[in-house]
């Protein structure tokens, strides 16, 4: 039975022209840059580097697309991680999506809602709009037999 942990993740959104995003150099500081579609990038980072990462993205994209929008959208997202050797199996009770490789991501139907899924080592992180935080928690416990571990 996998562990379920509520995540603390910062999320920076960059909405810009596709060509600008193609040329954008991803920020460092351990952040993960997800090209969610041609005109949007989500950067997922640890909360303590959120401001630095946001600044980096803002500065870099300004030269490529002056009209780009860069927002700290952390408040809009909730993250839940399934942790353990059986995390991928547990995830299969929530979604038909293939578990992404560590460092990779996918987007699609998880527990009947739209989610962004991050692959990790013996871990699957489910990122959903914040208003669905409780829904994912309940489904993970009921259908994936996850045990919630609070910080």
């Amino acid at each position, binding site marked *: 039975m996998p562990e379920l942990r509520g995540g603390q993740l910062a999320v920076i*959104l960059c*909405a810009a022209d596709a060509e600008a995003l193609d040329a954008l150099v991803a920020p460092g500081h351990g952040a993960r840059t997800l090209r969610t579609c041609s005109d949007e990038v989500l950067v997922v980072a640890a909360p303590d580097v959120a401001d630095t990462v946001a600044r980096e993205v803002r500065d870099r994209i300004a030269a490529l697309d002056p*009209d780009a929008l860069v927002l700290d959208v952390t*408040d809009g997202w909730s993250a839940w991680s399934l942790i353990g050797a059986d995390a991928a199996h547990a995830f299969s009770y929530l979604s038909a999506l*293939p578990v992404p490789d560590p460092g990779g991501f996918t987007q699609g139907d998880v527990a009947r809602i739209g989610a962004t899924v991050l692959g990790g080592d013996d871990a699957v992180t489910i990122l959903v709009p914040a*208003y669905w935080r409780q829904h994912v928690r309940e489904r993970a416990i009921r*259908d994936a037999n996850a045990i919630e571990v609070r910080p």
Partner: protein
Amino acid sequence: MATLRLDGRRIEVQDGDTIGAAAFRAGVRTFSRSLKSHRRRGLYCGTGDCANCLVTVDGMPGARACVTEARDGMRVTRETGWPSADRDTLAIMDRMHWATPVGFYYKVFSRPRWLWPLAERVIRRATGTGTLPPTEHVTATPTRFLRVDTLVIGGGVAGLAAAAAATGRVAVAEGGSIGAAAIDPEARAAIDRLAVQARVAGVEILERHAAIGIYEGPSVPLLGPDELVEVEASRVIVATGAIEAHGVFPGNDLPGIWLGRGAARVAAAGVKIGDRAIVVANTDAGERIGAALRAAGAHVTVVTGRVLEARGRTQVSSVTVLTPQGRRAYACDALVLSLGWAPRDSLLRMSPDPEVVGAGEVVLPGCSLTAAEDSGRAAARGESVEARLAEPWPVLEHEGYVCVCEDVRVHDLEAAWEEGWTSSEILKRYTTATMGPCQAALCSRHLAAFTQEKGAVPGATGRTTARPPLRAPRLEELIGGVHEQAERRTALHERHHALGARMDHSGLWLRPGTYGEFREEIRAVRQRVSVMDVSTLGKFLVGGRDARALLDWTFPLDVASVAPGRARYLLALDEAGYVMDDGLLAALRDGTFFLTSTSGGADRMEAWLRNWIDRLDLHAHLVNQTAQLGAINVAGPHARDLLAALSGDDLSREAIPYPGHGEIEVAGVPCRALAVGFVGELSYELHHPRGRSVELWDALLDAGRRWDIRPHGLDALDVLRLEKGHVYLAQDTMPDDHPTKLGLDWAVAMRKPDFVGKRALERMAQLPLERSLVGLRFDGSPQRGHPLTVDGAIVGRITSCTESEAVGGSIGLGWVRAVDGVFPAQLRAGELTATVVPTPFYDPGGERLRA
């Protein structure tokens, strides 16, 4: 000694027994009574294909005794026959064929009409297979998704060979246990060897998981003992094998008549199927079957030929066969048929996908073990195998049960044909042949052959369509996690609970209906100050150099007329010019735009805007901030006073005009304050980071105690907005309401060159206005939805209504139709009088919200 109870009687269970084998060994010959005529039926196919042996196991009906593992302590009951399967009072039905011809329910008992409901009740009780256990509630079966490159259905020789040879991620779904269907040591050895190969190759073998259909994808649901697995596969290899062809001849449904493989399987469990067994084999399986039966102690004679007739009373006692040497009659207590092969091809026939192929006996019936293995490997390599015709095929004699499940005889098919039902699909529906629990496993080819013999037109002679499910799934299997609604919650959810709110489902959202007394809440808004959690509103940020062009195209308002710092009521029209949603558009000082939509319309608004960005190739950036921002509406005559207590910012009308917005800090929380007017009092809709909602809410309620603040919910909101004549979309509006019908022409800038819906509005402006939404006053309390009449004729309907303390009396909105080109000013709503009045009812000049 392990035992089970069968209808209360204790029966010994030996190792590896199925329920059918244990029961047969104990002398049970009648396993069920047929649907219509209540004839005795015994073990026939022995492989889980027919429906003769359906039993209820530990309260759950629908188990096939011949393939269900017997366990110590099981309680098994036969499902048909009253008071028992052995002594069935309704056996008299077998003499009532004259009263129950094919399609009798269309002919008998339908007149006089009052007789039918009575007859139906009796008929229902006399038929059916099994009773569902009464359950208090149904819990969903755990459902999981499995994605594979190749799914093999059927864990026999061909299936396991295919799985072992296939590349990528492979799974095998086997309805029973691996090897249980093997009838001789050679087959068992092959299966064991191939199972080891498959496991070594990393194949996932799912035993006791039955595939009930193949859907587009291809995707295959597997019913397991306590889970449902939804498999998405790139390829599906169907290796479900074949059974012997069903024999149709007089007496063909007597207990003691077997299909060859099933008999051999029961014999392999050490059960003697009879003292004198006759095997009629036109395939080359005869000797092998005979050997298996002899090993269990039966005296066996193997013949070839055409079965003309079987006779017996409660079970078979003799058979007449037309052999190459002539007619022969044999005394027997077991008749075993191997007259031809019927591939189990329902799954294959369900799917036109080229990615679904067959391997083994399902395409090469009667092939050798080696050929089956080779075809499995060929299928794994992507080579499709040409299905071989199922030959030889038994002749349909002049009489006999064609559809054993539904008691349809050759005679019945003939009668139906004479009545004019001259195609296989229509014959199926009229006679119910192929519609029983075995789902055409036995008789689909027979029905097709019948129509061919009778000379039906081409196209009317095919086998009836194969459809899922192959087996009846239970309700809890169907609902597994699929159909529940996901609930959205705001950040203030716990606060609402703590305040004792009654939480309502408002679309996808959970929202407070009231905190106890909604009339008190209304008074707080109208007289003092109140707050409402409106975090559910759709919220969007629009930027980019084409932002203005996007908004000008998508919406009918003139974006240029909204100066930075100002806001405007926003109407969203669809391409037919009908009102789709509404909200507010705020022009931000940096050239971007912030817009809100109704809570229920957020996803649609995002899709709508993204559609136009895409189709018009605009350089516009859209961010859906619905989740990211919370919103609290502070409303009431003291709204500004309350904010002033928590903010040092300029809150005057110069700083935040109406309608307009300003960026302020309230209790240390950065907010975009939208000056709005939905409830008709001075209001500030504070949009803020969701993570600080609780902080802001607590601060407002705390500082608001000075004015006896109380929060309001949806119940109060309904009255407040109605007092201002504001519409609730989909309650007061209909899908074909264009702005004129709602009195919202002022929100449409027809002077713009083009926008979504403009041409439609131009077109509709040429037509007379037939319907209008109006304000109403009543001399009593009507009900929402009540029709409005003029001289008894319905000309409209009340869409919203309420008692209003603020304006005194009963008010509402409703749509009315023009009568002779004129809209009526007075109407009736049942006993009440409804007078059309202008809106808003409350503060018509809008002074309170502009304060």
